[in-house]
C-alpha cells in the first residue's frame, strides 16, 4: 500500500471521539470503514489491515465485517455507483424497465463499470423507497419516482 493511503487527520480524530461512545473500541469498525470508503472509494485487503491495526483488531475480524455487510466495495467502482432497487414494491412499478434502460444507455451489464470509470451499475435490495418506486441510489443520494426521461437527465448530470 502506498504511503499516502491512510485515513485523513480529520477522520483519525473523529475515530478517537467516536470510541468514547462505546464500551469497546471495536464498535467503531463500521464508522472507520465508512470513513475509509468515503476517502478512497473502496476497501482493499491492505485497507482492512490498516483499520485492524488502527483499532488493535485482528485482520480477519475486519475482513469478516467487511464481507458481511453489502455496502463496502471490495473492488474499485466507478465515480458514481448506481444501485437500482428491484425488490417487490419497485418491481411492481417497473424497476426492471429502469434497469434495462440504464444498461442500454451506459452499454454495460449489471455488475460492470463503464470503461471511462464514470458509472458502476448494480442491483439493490429494498432501499425503503417503496412509496416512491421505482428508485435508484447513486452514491449517497436517492432518486425516486423514476421514468426513463428522468433517468437520462440524472445520468447526464453526473460527470
Amino acid at each position: 500500500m502506498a504511503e499516502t493511503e491512510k485515513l485523513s487527520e480529520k477522520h483519525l480524530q473523529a475515530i478517537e471521539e467516536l470510541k468514547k461512545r462505546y464500551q469497546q473500541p471495536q464498535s467503531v469498525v463500521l464508522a472507520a470503514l465508512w470513513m475509509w470508503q468515503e476517502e478512497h472509494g473502496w476497501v482493499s485487503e491492505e485497507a482492512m489491515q490498516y483499520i485492524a491495526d488502527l483499532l488493535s483488531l485482528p485482520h480477519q475480524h475486519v475482513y469478516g465485517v467487511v464481507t458481511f455487510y453489502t455496502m463496502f466495495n471490495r473492488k474499485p467502482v466507478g465515480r458514481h455507483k448506481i444501485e437500482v432497487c428491484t425488490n417487490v414494491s419497485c418491481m411492481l412499478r417497473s424497476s426492471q424497465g429502469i434497469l434495462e434502460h440504464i444498461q442500454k444507455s451506459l452499454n454495460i451489464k449489471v455488475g460492470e463499470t463503464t470503461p471511462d470509470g464514470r458509472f458502476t451499475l448494480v442491483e439493490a435490495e429494498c432501499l425503503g423507497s417503496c412509496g416512491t418506486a421505482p428508485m435508484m441510489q447513486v452514491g449517497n443520494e436517492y432518486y425516486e419516482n423514476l421514468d426513463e426521461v428522468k433517468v437520462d437527465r440524472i445520468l447526464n448530470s453526473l460527470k
Partner: protein
Amino acid sequence: MEPLLLPSTANLHAIDVYESHGGYAMLRKALLMKPEEVTEEVKKSNLRGRGGACFPTGLKWTFMPKQTHLPKYLCVNGDESEPGTFKDRQIFESNPHLLIEGAIIASYAMGVKTAYLYVRGEYAKWIRLMQKVVDDAYARGYIGGNILGSGFSTDFYIHRGGGAYICGEESSLMNSIEGMRGYPRVKPPFPAQNGLWGCPTTINNVETIANVPVILRLGHEAYTKIGAAQHPGPILVGVSGHVNKPGVYEMPTGVPLLEIIERYAGGVPGNKRIKAVIPGGSSTKILRGEALQGVCMDADSLLKAGSSVGTAGLIVMDEDTDLISVITRIASFYHHESCGQCTPCREGTGWMLKILRRFERRDATMADLDLLLDVANNIEGNTICALGDAAAWPVQSMIQRFPEEFEKRVRVTAVA
C-alpha cells in the same frame, strides 16, 4: 383522526418549531414522574411494538432489571429493511424530535445511560438529518448531563449500519453495534438480561418510541381508545405497489385494508381487481384479493385472516400481476439476506429460490411443488432468528392460497 405522529405542521424538524408546538413538554412531565410511573403509563396504554412482532412495549420495559451494577442500554431500531416498509424514514424526516423525546423518556423510565439509534447504512441522508436534530437537542439540554435540571443524564448516539437486512433483528443489531458481523444470538438469554456488551438492553422500533410522548400527552385511557381495542394507537401504514397514491399514511389501527387502499391510497390504477396483498412487509403471509372483506390493519384481525401486521407495509398487486415472479423475487431477497449461521435457512433459502426459478421459466413439475413446501416447512421454526420463518411464510402462504399460479407454470410435456 388528527395525526399524532406525523402532524401536518411544517418544519417540525426545527427545534424552535417543535418546541412551540408543545415539543419536549412530555419529557418535562416525565422527569417529574417516577420512572416506574412512566413505564406503568406505557404499559397501560397497550402500545405494541411497531417493528413487526407487536410485543407489548411497557411489558418489555419491565424486563429491565431495577437493581444492577451494570450500565443499561436502549437501542432504537431504525434499520428499516423489510421490503415494503418505509415509515421510519418519514419520522426521521417529518418529526424527528418526537423520536428523540420518546427515546429520552424511555431512557428515563428504564434508567438507561446510553441510547443508540441504529440506522441502516443506506439512509445517509436521514442520518445527516438526524445528527443535526440530535445536536440541537443536546444544545438545548434535552440530552446529556442533568437533563432540564432533573439530575437524570443520558446520551443518545447514532450508529450507522453497513447494509444488512438481518441487522433489524434485535440481537444481530446489538452485534453490529459491538462492531461484529451481524449474526443473531441464541435466545435466551434475552437482551434485558444480557444485551449489549452483556448488559441489560432494550430494543424498540423507531415508530414505537415515537408513540411514547403521544401516550404521555393523551394519557393511557385516551390512547387505548384509539383504533383496535387489543392493539391501539396510531399506526403508520406504508402502501406500495399497484395503487394510485402510494405513500405512508397515519391512521388508527383497525382500519379495513380495502379502505386503506381505496380511501387513503386512491385505489388501484385502471380500477383493476386486487389479486393479492401482502399486508405487513414481505415476510407476512399473502392474502387473496377476494378474502379482504372485513380484514383490518391490526394484530387480531390479520391473525384471524391468516397473516400478520408486521411493519404495516401494505403491498398491493392487481389482477395482472405475475405472482410467481413476485414470490421468486421475495425468495431471492431472503436467500441474499440469510446470514448463513443456521443450515436450514442458509441452504433452504437457496433451494426455495432454485425451485421457484423452475416455476418462473415453466420448467417445474408438480413434485417440485411438494418439494418447495417441504423445504419451507423445514426452515420454519428451525433457526436461531426469525429470518428463517420470514423466508418460509411467504412461500408457504403463496402455495396455500394461490396453488393455481403454480399449477399453471408446470411444464406441459413431462420428461419421462
